[in-house]
């Protein structure tokens, strides 16, 4: 096929539930490609010899390689290429900000002068992963390579993306791996944070099941730092190495007046009630949910999009998304922004909450906001928002969800002597091995990076596993 012919292929739109319908149900919004659509989309890839898309991928998936196979209808072959470097294609195909990663560098997108017309790499990735899962293709249940040899024990703390990846790679190296999770379900942010309508929980469960088939053990309801300390794992329990993948689990608040009123939630709490605890199912689940009719969500990231769309699904009549910069600066995935708008979330950009007002019962009655304008670029390179004096106005709301990010949870650093953290509380690691200041203790994901993405966490988990495997090999020798 010539470049011209490839350019002429219409980019394959993703079939989706109708916005009006889906805004009231929990089912996944994007319905996925058909095999024909996947092949057609994959055939738009020009197979650039320089593979520019790969530099945009945090785990350097051989993107043209897998697209070539998908274009030829060899979907299993395509998945095998992805799996060489990525463990969670069904997840990453759905939640990666592709327009800022692989697709940003896609030559096709550049030729058509629109990043939205780049090859839809994530959608094809998702298709091949879903197809294999639906077929029940048994994941290579590789037996331990070191069977018979004395096995080394690895403790993995947390069960989110970084931990899942690290656990898989350590198990594949033949180690005896145990995952410790504080919640009663495994998956970390994939189960408590990201909603069903964006990432079906059955997909996460199949990843956890795959780990179990690799021989990974799970200890649930186990909060490391309290139930047992990291020092005990190494000194008393016979673990050879420990991986800390506990994420950025401490919600930031705005530090404004009225923020502790009844009806103000962190996005973590709001989403955990709905996702993990299934609080919306009032007939069958015991956890109560807050039924806001007029909801203000503060923030512009994926979590803010998730919370605002969840509010609609739980019966809100009006949902405002309030962000102090402009839409161009929003850190959320492009697709989530579009989906939120289609579903009816009202975006109030260049505005920010100033204080929450309450009634005599201490319940939220309104939100006072301020208008902003963009000033000089700040340290992050984004133009910093500047409040316009006297621009106060009031929104009539009964619920406020704060989705302005997370900082690192101090529980493990506070209970682990000698574990070094930076001034933001993130654990500091050797950039090549992800080993912390304590020999044999590794860390990765948001607890190291600060709040980041699933794929970056996965990359960290993978690097840490390589570090752990090398450390154990050296120690064993």
């Amino acid at each position, binding site marked *: 096929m010539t470049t011209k012919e490839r350019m002429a292929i219409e980019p394959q739109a993703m079939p989706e539930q109708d916005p009006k319908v889906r805004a009231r149900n929990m089912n996944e919004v994007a319905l996925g490609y058909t095999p024909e659509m996947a092949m057609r989309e994959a055939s738009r890839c020009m197979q650039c010899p320089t593979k520019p898309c790969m530099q945009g991928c945090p785990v350097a998936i051989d993107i043209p390689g897998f697209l070539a196979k998908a274009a030829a209808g060899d979907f299993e072959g395509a998945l095998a290429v992805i799996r060489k470097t990525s463990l969670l294609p069904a997840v990453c195909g759905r939640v990666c900000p592709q327009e800022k990663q692989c697709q940003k560098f896609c030559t096709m997108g550049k030729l058509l002068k629109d990043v939205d017309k780049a090859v839809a790499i994530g959608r094809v990735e998702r298709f091949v992963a879903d197809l294999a899962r639906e077929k029940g293709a048994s994941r290579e249940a590789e037996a331990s390579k070191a069977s018979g040899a004395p096995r080394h024990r690895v403790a993995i703390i947390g069960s989110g993306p970084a931990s899942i990846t690290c656990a898989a790679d350590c198990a594949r190296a033949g180690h005896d791996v145990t995952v410790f999770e504080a919640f*009663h379900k495994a998956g970390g942010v994939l189960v408590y944070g990201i909603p069903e309508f964006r990432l079906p929980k059955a997909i996460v469960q199949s990843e956890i099941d795959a780990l179990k088939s690799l021989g990974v053990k799970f200890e649930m309801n186990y909060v490391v730092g309290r*139930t047992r300390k990291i020092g005990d794992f190494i000194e008393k329990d016979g673990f050879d190495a420990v991986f800390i993948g506990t994420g950025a689990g*401490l919600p930031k608040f705005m530090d404004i007046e009225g923020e502790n009123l*009844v009806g103000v939630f*962190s996005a973590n709490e709001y989403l955990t009630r709905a996702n993990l*605890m299934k609080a919306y199912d009032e007939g069958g*689940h015991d956890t*109560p949910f807050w039924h806001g009719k007029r909801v203000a969500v503060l923030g512009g990231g994926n979590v803010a999009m998730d919370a605002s769309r969840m509010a609609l699904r739980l019966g809100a009549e009006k949902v405002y998304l309030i962000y102090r910069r402009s839409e161009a600066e929003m850190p959320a995935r492009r697709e989530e922004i579009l989906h939120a708008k289609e579903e009816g979330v009202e975006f109030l950009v260049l505005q920010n909450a100033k204080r929450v007002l309450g009634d005599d*019962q201490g319940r939220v009655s309104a939100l006072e906001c301020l208008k902003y304008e963009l000033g000089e670029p700040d340290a992050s390179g984004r133009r910093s928002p500047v409040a316009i004096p006297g621009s106060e106005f009031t929104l009539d709301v009964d619920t406020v969800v704060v989705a302005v990010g997370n900082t690192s949870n*101090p529980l493990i650093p506070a209970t682990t002597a000698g574990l070094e953290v930076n001034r933001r509380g993130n654990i500091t690691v050797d950039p090549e091995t992800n080993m912390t200041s304590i020999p044999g203790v590794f860390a990765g994901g948001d607890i190291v990076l600060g709040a980041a993405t699933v794929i970056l966490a996965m990359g960290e988990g993978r690097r840490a596993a390589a570090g752990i495997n090398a450390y154990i090999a050296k120690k064993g020798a």
Partner: protein
Amino acid sequence: MNRITEKRQLSDNVFTMKIEAPLIARERRAGQFIILMVDQETGERIPLTIADADPDEGTIRIIFQTVGATTMKLSHLEVGDSLAAVLGPLGRPTDIRGENGEKPGHVVCVGGGIGVAPMHPIAQALKAAGNRVTIIMGARNKSLFVMEDEMRKIAGDDLILMTDDGSSGRKGLVTEPLKELCEAGGVDEVITIGPPIMMKFCALATKPYGVKTVASLNTIMIDGTGMCGGCRVSVGGKTKFVCVDGPEFDAHQVDWDLMMKRMGAFKPQETVARDHACNLFKGIQTR
């Protein structure tokens, strides 16, 4: 996992259970708590205090009152049944006077209702650290006292019982003997655990005397590790998380009124869920 090895009903709606939780039994310190779930798939996560623990036997003791759907369901479990989840020990342990360089002194422990249960390990530890421990227990009536014998063992003659109806000990509120003790002088510290309104008035009672007063809070939580922030309270104008910064705070600094309002956030839904659970056990089909 987490099998119930003992169960007793202490009064109309108060129960005590021993639960197998060997790691928690070994690690827990006075002042810490757990989060439990009755059902893995449909259950709610609720914080409960630890009344006692036996590390050799690998069990912890809880004392709970049936106030919502989960405690109602819990009360219907029997010896041999298992809980879906028990997480802990959570929160910072109590700073026991006399353990960290401070001189032991006279500590007054004020427990209201089943707030006496979490007070038990704290009072034990205070006594062991060489403090004089006075315990004030309050309840609506005599039948609602829990762990009276255990507390008497610790405080001896310094145990003061208060009931609303005078059916045991003195008739009146716990704040009365608390004020008298502060007035008499020599009280180094007060620790209070019980209904928020009682803790609030204990704080008001001791404030004029400038006696250090600590309250142990039990707010709404989901994860118990600092992730959700649902438990947050305002202490001295700053937002604190009960699960990781607490559960104990300077009682004079806590914004009690706001905390009580937050604890009532889900009252309508909780009432529906409790009645539903209640009817379920009575065999009445409601939905």
